[in-house]
């Protein structure tokens, strides 16, 4: 009974079971164990951290050296069923030679074995969804980088997959196209599609994602929703923005009490970012300063409860694991 419940649970999840991938002696990812539930999940990490390897493992483009991957109960090693449910928009910016956007989508759908009239309808629908209708009959070789990104996205969603894997999907898009793409991802997420998105544009995927996975050097650093991940790093320094009348005096007091490890004045001069390693003691000292009238505090807010800040905490500005 419990086993069947476990199977049912994993059948709607993307599961990495102790997965490692080595390219010869080079580490791709190591000992990754993950269960990604339905919803929008972002995969964050610096270049070379193993994001693309993780996505390629998820879709069978590379095979794990160790461990097992399954996506909504399907194995990437059985592509005939797998890719009816899964779409993958890679970051490889290349296409078959000499094809137009429409031919590219059409050829891809033809391999699903569906009727020709359905192929035409789905092709048009996918082109419309990414707003490429007018350029559809031009050769892809003449497309801008943003258009090539869009046509790859159209190809990945054309067959209405249940799981969509997107590797850096916002790269090369202008602000308008980026907003359109984000709106499309949100719409797909609302429709119940399982989305896994990797990106460097953290503030945008932050708003999109239900969950975040942080990876660096091939190792999983943290996973969960933003707040959960924040919990995981309670012992890490946290940054707080305090709006007050005398920020320098406040910083001096916090430093002298040993509650502050770093201070940075806000650009407008009326606030200060303070970084602390012990948030509970920090707030006690701050309250004491306010009660004693040492400073007049207007507002206090965590300044880094977003992916970018957590990412910086965990991975460090150089991208090395902390």
């Amino acid at each position: 009974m419990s086993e069947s419940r476990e199977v049912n649970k994993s059948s709607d999840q993307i599961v990495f079971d102790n997965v490692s991938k080595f390219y010869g002696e080079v580490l791709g990812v190591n000992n990754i164990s993950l269960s990604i539930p339905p919803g929008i999940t972002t995969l964050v990490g610096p270049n070379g951290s193993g994001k693309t390897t993780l996505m390629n493992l998820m879709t069978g483009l590379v095979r794990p050296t160790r461990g097992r991957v399954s996506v909504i109960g399907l194995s990437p090693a059985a592509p005939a069923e797998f890719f009816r449910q899964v779409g993958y928009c890679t970051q490889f910016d290349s296409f078959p030679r000499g094809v137009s956007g429409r031919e590219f989508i059409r050829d891809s759908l033809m391999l699903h074995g569906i009727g020709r009239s359905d192929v035409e309808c789905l092709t048009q629908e996918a082109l419309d969804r990414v707003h490429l209708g007018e350029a559809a009959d031009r050769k892809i070789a003449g497309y801008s980088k943003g258009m090539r990104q869009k046509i790859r996205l159209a190809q990945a969603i054309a067959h209405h997959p249940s799981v969509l894997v997107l590797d850096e999907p916002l790269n090369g898009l202008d602000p308008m196209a980026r907003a359109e793409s984000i709106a499309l991802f949100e719409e797909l997420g609302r429709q119940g599609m399982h989305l896994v998105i990797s990106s460097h544009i953290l503030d945008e995927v932050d708003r999109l994602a239900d969950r975040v996975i942080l990876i660096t050097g091939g190792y999983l650093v943290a996973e969960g929703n933003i707040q959960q991940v924040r919990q995981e790093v309670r012992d890490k320094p946290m940054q707080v923005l305090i709006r007050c009348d005398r920020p320098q005096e406040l910083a001096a007091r916090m430093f002298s009490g040993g509650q502050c490890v770093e201070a940075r004045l806000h650009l407008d001069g009326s606030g200060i970012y303070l970084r602390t390693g012990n948030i509970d003691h920090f707030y006690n000292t701050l309250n004491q300063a306010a009660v004693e009238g040492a400073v007049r505090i207007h507002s206090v807010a965590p300044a880094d409860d977003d992916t970018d800040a957590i990412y910086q905490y965990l991975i460090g500005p150089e991208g090395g694991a902390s």
Partner: protein
Amino acid sequence: MSESRQAMPWRMWWLQGRRLTAIEIRRNLFSWKAGWVYFLAMAPALLILVHLVFNRGQPSRMDEDTEILAGIMQFYYLRLAIFFGCLGIFSRLIRGEMIERSLHFYLLAPLRREVLLLAKFAAGSLSAVLVFGGAVLLDFVLMYLGYGAAGRDYVLHGPGLEQLLAYELITVLACLGYGSIFLLFSMLFRNPAPAAMLLLGWEFINPVLPLLLQKISVAGYLRSLFPVPVAAKGIFALLTVPAAPVPGWQACLGLLVLTILVLLYACRRMRNLEIHYTSE
């Protein structure tokens, strides 16, 4: 829909294979990059045409021209044009798409890897047969066109038609045999050209190898199928004289078995193929 797919996988594989073959033939034949293959195939036809136009009226003998045609088939088509044409066509199918970084689109389709490989092989074979089979037919027509009624009589009522069919059969079998090997090479090696050169050398020395090793050869089987002997002397006799002649049906069967074995191994490799474009 899914149940019917599972109940009739062969039907789905056949449909997917046919569609993929059509896509690949379009990419093989209607591309500027295929220009050199057309040139390789049509070069003898151009020379025969030039000869036909400029040497019109000069005496020539049909038996001599028949032997020249046999020489073109044995030395040029089998040893050079089909060999290198197939190297170009079949290497593009896997390695070429790896270099262009577009192979992953096929690997992300709901398609068994074996169906993908066999459809690509079918597309390569049909493309090669269309180009080289067409070229051989054109050579044959041009060669006997200058003889007028006598040429027509030789082809339609003499041994000509049988020779043409034999040459076409040799072309088809050569495309299948070399195609399968080059398709496998393009999966095994980042640059299949050195391996192809080794194969060329192997094919050359094959007649002096032990009998068992002679079975591992494309040209070895095909030599037994040539309808017109070519009087080659010295080292060139290695290219034309069958060291261990076998009946035609055995030669066809042997080559087909060799092709199937190579394809089975290629299918196995295909199942485990990974995409590492950065290492290309």
